[in-house]
């Protein structure tokens, strides 16, 4: 395949940035999207140009590192991570536009690399069970009905890639935040801190500059792990019941 790539280049956080066009040829349809970018980068290096910086690591769809807005969609045309997207999803001669995630809370570091540490700070605010190492009961002393365990698991599959934010016209992080709140609200281990967790995580999410949710559902539609919109509904319920019964007046 021969392709034209329209890629966002930006030297650093303060640079204005802009699109640049590149041509790549002899691309195999079995290549992953990132391997196609590897080819481009080899080409650029050989010419003495700065290679395109993009985030990636495990290349098997689990670490959450890879990102990229491809032809206007986070992680491209399939509901998967970019590393699991293969060139067979594109046509010979096509022009592909590649941009970084766009969100105030995800500043661009260089080219296609963004800073997602805001997600860490949301987890920091309460996305855990406050248990220290040691002194816990036997694992089978906490039986959990399979249906509930499975549903909690569905929420726990979030890899924190940020596609939900990138897909949202409001750059909202509700799907990400709600996945963690849901997982722990459903499990017996998460009950003690349930209310406090919802309040704190949502406060942090707002403080980071993520937008509000207007129930469009683009987040869930683009989520490579298929995290359900139900989690946002559950988070709203959790938040509501937390505030009305809050002890922090």
């Amino acid at each position, binding site marked *: 395949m021969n392709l034209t790539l329209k890629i966002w280049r930006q030297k650093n956080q303060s640079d204005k940035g802009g699109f640049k066009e590149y041509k790549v040829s002899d691309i*195999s349809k*079995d*290549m*992953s999207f*990132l*391997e196609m970018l*590897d*080819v481009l980068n*080899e080409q650029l*290096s*050989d010419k*003495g140009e*700065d*290679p395109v*910086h993009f*985030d990636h*690591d*495990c*290349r*098997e*769809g*689990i*670490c*959450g590192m890879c990102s990229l807005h491809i032809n206007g969609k986070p992680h491209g045309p399939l509901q*998967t991570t970019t590393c*699991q997207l*293969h060139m*067979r999803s594109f046509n010979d001669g096509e022009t592909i536009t590649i941009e970084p995630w766009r969100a105030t809370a995800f500043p661009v*570091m260089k080219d296609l690399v963004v800073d*997602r*540490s805001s*997600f*860490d700070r949301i987890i*920091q605010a309460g*996305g*855990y*069970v406050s*248990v220290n*190492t*040691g002194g*816990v*009961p036997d*694992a*089978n002393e906490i*039986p*959990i*009905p*399979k249906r509930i*365990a499975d549903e*909690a*698991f569905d929420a*726990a*599959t979030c*890899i*924190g890639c940020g596609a939900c934010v990138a897909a949202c016209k409001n750059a909202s992080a509700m799907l990400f935040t709600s996945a963690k709140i849901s*997982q*722990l609200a459903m*499990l017996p*281990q*998460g009950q003690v801190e349930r209310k406090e967790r919802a309040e704190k995580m949502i406060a942090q999410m707002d403080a980071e500059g993520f937008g509000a949710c207007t129930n469009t559902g683009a987040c869930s539609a683009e989520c490579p792990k298929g995290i359900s919109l139900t989690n946002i509904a559950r988070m709203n319920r959790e938040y509501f019941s937390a505030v009305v019964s809050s002890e922090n007046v």
Partner: protein
Amino acid sequence: MIDSKIPPGPIQEKWTQYKASCRLINPANRRKYRVIVVGTGLAGSSCAASLSELGFQVEVFTFHESPRRAHSVAAQGGINAAKDYKNDGDSIWRMFYDTVKGGDFRSREANVYRMAECSLALIDQAVAQGVPFAREYSGYLSNRSFGGVQVSRTFYARGQTGQQLLQGAYQALMRQSQIGNVRLHTRHEMMDLWVEEGKAKGIVARNLDTGEIKLHVADAVVLATGGYGKIYYLSTLAMNCNASAIWRAHKQGAFFAAPSWTQFHPTSLPQMGDYQSKLTLMSESLRNDGRIWVPIKSGDNRPPHEIPEEERDYYLERKYPSYGNLAPRDISSRAAKEQIDNGHGVGPMNNAVYLDFKDAINRDGKTAIEKRYGNLFYMYKKITGMDAFKEPMLISPSAHFSMGGLWVDYELMSNLEGLFVLGEANFADHGANRLGANSLLQACVDGYFISPHTIMNYLAGEKPIEDPKPELSHEIIDTNQKRLDNLLAIQGNKTAEEFHKELGKILYNKCGLIREKQTLLKAKTELKNLRDSFYKELLVPKGSSLNFELEKAARMEDYLELAQLIVEDALQREESCGAHFRAEHQTPDGEAKRNDNEFQFVSVWEILENGNHNLHKEHLDFESIKVSERSYK
């Protein structure tokens, strides 16, 4: 010179006795001590969180943007624990024995026993954190079986056990960074180890965003920086996995043990083309239901469904009837390579074997199989475009896990005092071959349950460190800055990636699944030439701030040095054991032939001033179990 510090007494009592007698620090004094933890995978995150919970100051470093990205995330199949929830005869002792045997009697007995012993508490810990392990309809935890054992002791979380366990540890770490004493340094890469009077007292780290290099001091340093299987280029590891932290520590005097013991995972996806950057792993759990076979006739290119049952060779079931498709990884991988080398390989490049679910689907139904492995089948389809419900999967062995690593004693401390090495970065528990679902376990156990005790024991004998004199720190910072400047100055015409591919080819072909003296000697020359050309032809685009190519080049430089030691290690060990198979040393039916008289030791390498290596031997004493031939027939 090699003192493993194994506590006296019967094996069942050693760890209890150690904990009862190790030194403690009063809670009010703990905050005076600072510990640096490098790496935020399961071992690093759990160790950092646990130390902070105890009241120590912890400085955490990772080159990732977030601790949650560490490669523990990618482990699929599960984590072992001798809970015996299945009533199938499991026990700490059996798990201990399975692991020592799985490692081909080349691991340290006392360490392995302790790992099995601590496995019980680990499952409790993870569940308390909210890790969503698989459950039965009763609401109780579910288990499955893994390679090299005959009980079901593997706890799992669909095909993403590593991701879920790491979330637990990451969350514990994030909680401590909020309420406790953890300071996070993300996007920081360790460049060097700071040693004062023979003791590890800090690290030199580079801020990857700004390029700034700084010395960070501490009372102890923990390296939990993972494995180096990526040295083979094509591997199941993440693209950024590297050996730099442990190699830099090695160059400062930490001994390196068994560098050539690398496990090749039997069920990864085969290479499909030259452009390929990694080989995706398919969980070993698939071997519970999948049957591995190749056509009996070599060069048989018919599609799999046209090959009748009697013309198929289910070679693992044939050769190892009692373990069958669940034979341990080293044996399964080598058997696959043998079939491929003898012309029975299948797939477009004839470099794979079949993993067939037809019988399991007929037996249990498609729904049951989908429930068990749905996400793996889905992933397989996305990558290859093929449907494993309809045709057998193509799998092949690929570089996976480093059993070797920095040498540590029973306390997980290196020969350099104050340097602790955890998880895959050390060598201790897996011998010459790791059993499936033991790596998550080892990382967790090292981090949650062992290192907090042994580090406190060490710190109790130390006076809290003061910041070093500026002129001292300038020197080591300059050295490291110069090293990068030199790489930038070469301005040749080959990227680090291209060197990496070449290095990978040399190692795969000459120091991979099967090794032989003559080819190893050839590899030695080729590696030397490759290293020479690296310093003449390397091309790194200019720029000292965020520059991924510079990061790669520095890691590559370390890989090139490590590769030479790997080959040296493989040459020195004139026997076959576990993953280390020397063609000269095999039984008449092609199995690995150990040489216990001469090689019942761990090879421990010390680096000399001139860069050469000196071999020390840690003799392995088996007091509790009888060393026997490792058979899975």
